């Protein structure tokens, strides 16, 4: 065994040298004295017109590989003809390719010309070129759009196994989710370059391609918003709002619960749900403990409201950020399509919570002395810590929200609004609160989350490259078009996306699930007839976000709330959370389905 491994390694290195040697052989090219110039151009694209990049193209003339010219000679500039390495050109990111060949004079029209295409995960094939068009004497052109066929091989199975493995590693908490995604992305690239070097069947995606799959708009938007929240929370505004809610409720617990639900949903629509709950949970528990009621009677409505409220805008929840960026939907698109249904769901939540906890709230220890005592305690603990910073922060936040509203008009990515807001706020925080910038950037930005997103985009990108996503999307499209229950394909697709996304998000992390669904929904939006006004994207947003209410592990905000409550002596079991959260999820999904199918088409 000790000898075998080094021998294999040496063989691998030796063979790679031989291969590299072959690769570097310079093409010996003879240009005919007088020639016909033939330009072959077009696009490599899928059946649905999506560009297929990095397709290797060779030109075969009369059975022989033909040198391809990448730059023609220019007498004025004194430049020589340049030829493509290995007699091949590669299609660009928009799928376009151009191959120029020189043939002996007066032979072009009679020549047997074929285009040979080659791309890992696609079938290699030759396409016969018929009827080239003469432009001038000795100059010909032919447009040929090429649709390569998928090849299900080693790359396909590897990308599928790695994607499934990442889901398993994350769901069963075998590995930290950032490490799981990092491992998956690095293994995919390693296999592509090392194994793919010997056998193109193992080539999954290039490094360049992997970089292109990372959606930096999502990364920068998350980063910007994390910094904005990081500065704002230093002012104590969130906890102060909870204290003010208690003050406004004047000892009426039901009124307090309603005010807190509305405040939480509103804050969650603009800021991260996890931070919102992390800051509001302690003060809520304090109120409940002093009033001698179970903290969960207030926390449950709050966390459910947070997950519902986060669905209302582009920046409310990570799945929305991902959807908005991928589908190029603006902040206002989200507000118009989702905010009304979120408001209806909030009303439904308030009614459900009234039935669930209404009677219980009456048991609270509400002596005037107790109410006053709590008010004094909260006022002391939860006050605005820096008024000047808060005032400036609010001005910047309003400015950022205005930029979000206008980003579509300026054709500006929403991340730019978040980044400019974060930069301005940081400057203000440095001047007014003597903030240590390095510490702030190190502590307030969730680096593991950002790395997780980046690696996840690569893993899903690999599944797109190898055709796995296409396969799933085709299956969903076929199910939607099956006419099941006499329903139109678009109706079936909306129902499927809302409900499957919600149930999956209640069980597994909704971030990898949404990342996987993005290219699937993009495909479905193209192939399903009568899909209008981005309805499938809204279905995905509603399903992925509302699904978080279904179980304790459905959303990070639930986990943080449960963790703090446990440390406050009020643990919750998985089933107890589900008893309240699951019915809320079902009701909000029913409302979403009705809204999407019957109301949305009439208002858009």
């Amino acid at each position: 065994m000790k000898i075998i491994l080094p021998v294999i390694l040496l063989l691998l290195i030796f063979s790679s040298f031989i291969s590299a040697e072959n690769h570097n052989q310079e093409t010996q090219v003879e240009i005919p004295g007088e020639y016909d110039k033939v330009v072959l151009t077009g696009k490599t694209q899928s059946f649905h017109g999506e560009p297929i990049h990095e397709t290797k193209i060779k030109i075969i003339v009369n059975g022989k590989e033909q040198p391809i010219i990448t730059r023609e000679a220019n007498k004025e500039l004194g430049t020589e003809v340049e030829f493509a390495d290995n007699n091949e050109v590669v299609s660009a990111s928009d799928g376009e390719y151009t191959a120029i060949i020189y043939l002996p004079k007066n032979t072009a029209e009679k020549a047997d010309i074929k285009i040979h295409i080659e791309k890992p995960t696609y079938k290699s094939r030759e396409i016969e070129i018929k009827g080239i068009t003469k432009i001038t004497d000795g100059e010909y052109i032919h447009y040929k759009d090429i649709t390569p066929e998928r090849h299900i091989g080693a790359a396909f199975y590897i990308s599928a196994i790695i994607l499934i493995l990442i889901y398993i590693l994350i769901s069963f908490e075998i590995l930290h989710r950032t490490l799981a995604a990092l491992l998956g992305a690095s293994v995919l690239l390693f296999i592509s370059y090392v194994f793919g070097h010997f056998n193109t069947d193992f080539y999954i995606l290039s490094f360049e391609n992997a970089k292109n799959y990372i959606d930096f708009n999502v990364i920068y938007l998350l980063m910007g918003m994390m910094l904005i929240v990081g500065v704002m929370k230093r002012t104590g505004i969130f906890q102060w709002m909870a204290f003010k809610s208690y003050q406004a409720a004047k000892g009426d617990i039901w009124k307090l619960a309603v005010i807190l639900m509305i405040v939480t949903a509103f804050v969650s629509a603009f800021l991260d749900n996890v931070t919102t709950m992390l800051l509001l949970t302690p003060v809520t528990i304090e109120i409940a403990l002093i009033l001698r009621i179970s903290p969960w009677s207030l926390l449950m409505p709050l966390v459910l409201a947070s997950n519902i409220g986060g669905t209302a805008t582009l920046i409310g929840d990570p799945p929305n950020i991902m959807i908005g960026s991928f589908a190029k939907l603006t902040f206002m698109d989200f507000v118009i399509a989702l905010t009304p249904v979120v408001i209806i769901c909030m009303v439904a939540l308030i009614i459900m919570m009234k039935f669930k906890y209404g009677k219980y709230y009456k048991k609270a220890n509400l002596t005037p002395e107790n109410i006053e005592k709590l008010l004094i305690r909260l006022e002391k603990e939860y006050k605005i810590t820096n008024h000047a910073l808060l005032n400036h922060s609010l001005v910047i936040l309003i400015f950022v929200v205005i930029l979000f509203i206008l980003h579509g008009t300026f054709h500006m990515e929403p991340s730019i609004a978040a980044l400019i807001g974060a930069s301005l706020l940081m400057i203000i925080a440095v001047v007014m609160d003597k903030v240590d910038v390095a510490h702030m950037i190190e502590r307030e930005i969730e680096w593991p989350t950002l790395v997780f997103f980046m690696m996840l985009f690569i893993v899903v990108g690999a599944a797109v490259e190898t055709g796995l996503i296409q396969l799933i999307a085709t299956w969903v499209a076929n199910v939607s078009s099956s006419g099941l229950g006499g329903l139109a394909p678009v109706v079936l697709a909306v129902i499927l996306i809302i409900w499957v996304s919600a149930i999956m998000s209640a069980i597994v992390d909704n971030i990898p699930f949404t990342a996987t669904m993005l290219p699937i929904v993009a495909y479905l939006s193209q192939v399903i007839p009568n899909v209008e006004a981005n309805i499938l994207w809204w279905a995905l947003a509603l399903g992925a976000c509302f699904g978080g209410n279904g179980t304790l592990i459905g959303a990070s905000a639930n986990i943080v709330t449960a963790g703090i409550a446990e440390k406050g002596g009020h643990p919750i079991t998985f089933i107890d959370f589900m008893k309240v959260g699951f019915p809320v999820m079902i009701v909000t999904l029913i409302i979403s389905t009705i809204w999407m199918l019957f109301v949305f088409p009439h208002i858009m």
Partner: protein
Amino acid sequence: MAINTIICATKGSKGCKIAEDKAIEIAKENNSKLIFLYVIDTKFMEKARGGGGWAKDDAVSGLKNIGGVIIDIAKEKAIEMGMSPDDVLTEERNGDIASQIKNSAEEHNADLVVIGHPESDAGFLERHLISKEGTESFVKRLKEKIGCEVMIV
């Protein structure tokens, strides 16, 4: 053996309230000083998005306020049950629960530590964290680590 100082580690749960009652009863019987201890433990944040390191400070300050309420309520109860306010103290510490109970016991020269059984009122997350090493093993480790008499109620 004289019991001069008792530490009751509590987080205000049902199980902990039984431990609080027991500690008050023993303290009254022995005229001991009773310290209610709340340990701020943010291990659960590891399960939050991104490992939760980014928000530990917020979790600590939030739990500090909650802990304050919990130990104040326990103190009120001890006084209501007849203990002298001078004999009831409260303390908050931050870190690993077992280590912090040990540190507190050493600093106060405690003769007895009273705690609720860790599994009696653990929720989904705590069960998950405890199950990694097993409840019995957790209790055993706690007893070994604290180094004085430990009563698990």
